[in-house]
């Protein structure tokens, strides 16, 4: 035992904690961003782990600070290699591929069929990978596999590329994992219920005339912080052989700033219901017609299960 580097990690952590925020905070949506991906088994959308031979899809959540940008993309699925760090790659043939060269509105999605158990061998992980282009078309010289990841990009003067990947766990032994659900949980802002809108992208950015509902509450700019919370009424923490799941919730806003990008409901959190709280620093100013602010939440169970939710605020002067 000549090495004892791990304690050094702790000291490094101490040294860096609180310093990384000098760069752009990740919880503020300043450009087109991919925030998450949800795996659904065909015909059983709550299942995140497809079995060998089953068809499944992976859908990506893409958001913008303002109006929704049309997206081009190239996505594919394959058996994943065993690399430890960096960007993983394929260890087998393509299982499914989706390509959109003419940018369109809508979530990027790829369908695929899981190989048979004999083809999988002892491998349990699939890789979904590709590039999402805001206002552009994918560029994958030689095909997506050949271009991945270095040369996977976009064409178009204003195109903004984001390389994406997602891990899909295959259920080879009858075990399962359900996607968590945010739809049965309670969001609150300032102590009041905060509901969702059918299509948050359909709301006008100048919101003061249409706001004032539980789905689009009005708040005043520059008044400091607003308390936000999420009560997990339908506790989605499944039991696993290693213990109960922990749920992480990533939070983002298109203006203002949530106090942290990640929150976790630990597996041993016994509160009923578990509640996650945030402090939302309101924008310093807003136009007279109001400014629509979207807050996006991504819940992950740490095993491949995911759900998304979006809430809106109308910030007025």
């Amino acid at each position, binding site marked *: 035992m000549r090495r004892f580097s*791990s304690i050094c990690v702790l*000291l490094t952590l101490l040294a860096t*904690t609180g310093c*990384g925020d000098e760069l752009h905070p990740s919880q503020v949506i300043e450009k087109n961003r*991919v925030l998450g991906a949800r795996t659904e088994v065909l015909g059983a959308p709550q299942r995140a782990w497809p079995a060998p031979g089953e068809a499944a899809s992976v859908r990506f959540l893409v958001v913008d600070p303002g109006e929704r940008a049309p997206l081009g993309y190239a996505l594919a699925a394959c058996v994943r290699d065993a690399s430890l760090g*960096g960007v993983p790659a394929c260890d087998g043939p393509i299982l499914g591929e989706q390509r959109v060269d003419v940018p369109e509105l809508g979530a990027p999605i790829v369908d695929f069929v899981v190989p048979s158990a004999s083809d999988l061998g002892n491998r349990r992980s699939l890789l979904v990978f590709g590039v999402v282009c805001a206002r552009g078309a994918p560029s994958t010289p030689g095909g997506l596999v050949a271009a991945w990841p270095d040369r996977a990009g976009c064409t178009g003067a204003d195109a903004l590329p984001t390389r994406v990947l997602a891990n899909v766990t295959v259920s080879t032994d009858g075990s399962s994992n359900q996607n968590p659900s945010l739809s049965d949980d309670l969001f609150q802002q300032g102590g009041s219920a905060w509901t969702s809108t059918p299509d948050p992208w359909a709301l006008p950015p100048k919101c003061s005339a249409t706001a004032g509902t539980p789905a689009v509450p009005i708040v005043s700019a520059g008044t400091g912080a607003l308390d936000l919370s999420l009560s997990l009424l339908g506790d989605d923490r499944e039991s696993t052989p290693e213990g109960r799941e922990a749920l992480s919730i*990533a939070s983002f806003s298109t203006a203002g700033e949530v106090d942290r990008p990640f929150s976790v409901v630990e597996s041993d959190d016994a509160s009923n219901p578990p509640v996650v709280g945030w402090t939302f620093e309101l924008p310093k100013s807003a136009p007279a017609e109001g400014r629509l602010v979207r807050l996006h939440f991504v819940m992950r169970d740490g095993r491949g299960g*995911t759900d998304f939710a979006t809430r809106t605020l109308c910030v007025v002067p």
Partner: protein
Amino acid sequence: MLPRPARTGAEVRSLAPLIVIFAAVGATSIPARAQPVPAPRPAPRVTPPQLVAPPDRSVPTAVEAQERGRNVLFELEIDDAGHVTAARVVTPSGSELERVLTARALGLKMEPARRDGVPIAARIRFLFQLDWPTEGDATSAPKTDSAANEDDAPRAASADASAPRTPPETVATNAKSGQAPAGSSGGDEELVYEAEASVEAPTREVTRHSLRGEALTKMPGTRGDALRAVEVLPGVSRPAAGDGAPILRGASSFESLVLLDGSTIPLLYHFQSLTSTFSSRLLQSVDMYPSNFSVRYGRVHGGVVAARSRSPRRDRLHALADVSLLDSSVLVEAPIGDHTGVALAARRSNIDFYFEKVAPSDSFSVVAAPLYWDYQALVEHELSSRHTLRLKAYGSRDQLELFFAEPVAGDPSLRGDIAGMMEFHHVQGELKSRLGPRVEQDLSLTLGRNVLSQRIGPEIDARLETVTLAGRGEWKLQARSDLSLTAGVDVEASFFDGTYRGSRPPQLEGDPSIGETQTTTARVDLEAAFRHVSPAFYAELGWLPATWVRVVPGVRLDYFELFDSWTVDPRLAVRMEVTKTTTLKSGVGLFTQAPLYYQGISEIGNPELEPERALHASVGVEQRFGHWLEMGAEGFAKRITQRIVATTDGNAPFFVNDGIGRVHGIELSAKARPDSDTFAYLAYTLSRSERRDHADPWRLFDYDQTHNLVAALGRDLGAGWEAGARFRWVTGNPRTPVVGSAFDASTGVYRPLYGAINSERNPTFYQLDLSVEKTWALPGFQLTAYLDLQNATNAANPEGVTYSYDYSDSETTRGLPLFPNIGLRGEL
């Protein structure tokens, strides 16, 4: 584990031609000496220590009546800087006079003993004469013949413990007062000075850099840390930020050994880089072999740093207490009877007293602030004139525990309990014996228990307990005056028991993903108990074909049980003293690096791994200028084969012997001691260290430093003031650029897309360290206040790059800012 045939023979055969060629080059590199054997050189000239300032001969005010007129005979130990490190009354009575004179003796200013002009440590007898009032003086007490009594004491002096294997060289001189270290500052009495000065064993290795005396504890920028002082030596790269382990001649820190009295230290520095876990004040010497080391050492193919603890002082009770911002320590030494000395030391960190006030408390709560402690206990007993027994116990503990209620920004895996603990306890016994006029024996046995635990949120949870047993037996036969044989057995056994949950260990070097968030890496769960026994046998000849040539061939045979592998390492060193002040040297040899234990666990490693091999070659010259300046120049090269690298696809067997490496460079060094109050070191290393993984292109080693310039200066300014400075100018470490990223939707964290490994560098590192201390000599007590200022100019010295969450933006990460360590030290 599948049995495999040993493949050592083939490896040796493949490298044998290179060895032969190099040996031939070494043997013919001095054409002028390829003549008939020259006349034997005269024996080395040894000069005794010289007083450079007269002692205080005034009669102490409070002297018992029976002590009046007495002069006291001391046995003094004087280091190679001329400092009196120990003063023992030969026939002690425990009087106040002895106590006062002992304090004065310890403050004597000496020119060190010299062998052919080179300062050496010495032990001498010294008669401390006082200016007693003459007969008839109204204040004088009845004169006693105490001096004569003292002279009745035995004259035999023992050899310096620093070189027990070398017969002492005796010098005797008659000198006039003022030239010899007798206690007379004037007058015309002729004094007889008699002493024995022992010298270090002749260097058997191609290159040995030694630190002794004040260089161990007064090197600026090291906070008095003896092991850190090796950083001023040539061939030693600047260690990585947060990791003080030495990087010798382009080798990773885990490829080099740091030994204490021949045994591996489980944890070199508290918190990896703060301060040594063994008190520097109990060290006698630190020898550094940057490569081409003796067959006594093995299991690594980098270099060796060998620290040697000193003997407890046996002249009287000594006590020391030291309090600084970092830690507090105490040291007590005392004789027990005539033949036994004991030293006890302990240290505890002070960081926890103020940690919560300086830490960013809004990010985490402190469960257990950083705390370290260590202890050492040494007992040395002279069983007889031929046998000396040393027992030593030492241990250390580091611990830290924080609680992050919320994940750290950008890394959801860093949350909850972040804790680490490392503790070890070792006991060691050493028996040194002179079995006959020509045979010496060294036996040592070390038993240790090491415990490591760490927990980083939900992603990493590990605990490993290791019981280690290390034994060494070495026998040296001086067969003829020109031929000696050293043979030994060196056994290490480790018994591991632990659990581990975390990411699969990556390749140790050349993998930029080390340090990536644990969220993105696959986890493994392990529970294992196993043992690894590694016996080794070695033999080495010391042959003087001519008085000016020393040839040291040796061979080492190693077995690695965990990997069922035998290796044979032949080595050769040649030193030629072509003139009285010039030595040419060269060496070549094979070296073996054992795989790390976990690399042999099948779930995360490959039990079929072979040890790494390396061929070292070096050639150089050492030149002395007068009595105060030594310079050296050396070229070196290394070729590493069978390097252990991760599999290209990350699949089992996870590690394979599919890497190679090459290192070459030039070292220039100078060591000056213009007077007994001043020491100076200057070292410059020009080197290039590269690695190749699989069939990838050659790349730079993680800590390749093209230029490494270090200068250090220390001076006793008088009146109790001492000051020093160290300056380092080093090429920035290589780093791997991030050229893009991919968003991992499963974790919410971006994964970096790396460019060519180690294809960029951090900016040049430069740092000035300053130290100053003031000592007040009080009756029977000495108080010192000190300040060690690291990075006195507060240079930014970027150590890397911090990226934004998606790697689209970055800023440099600065290194250690200006760091003052202030303290007080009292010595009794």
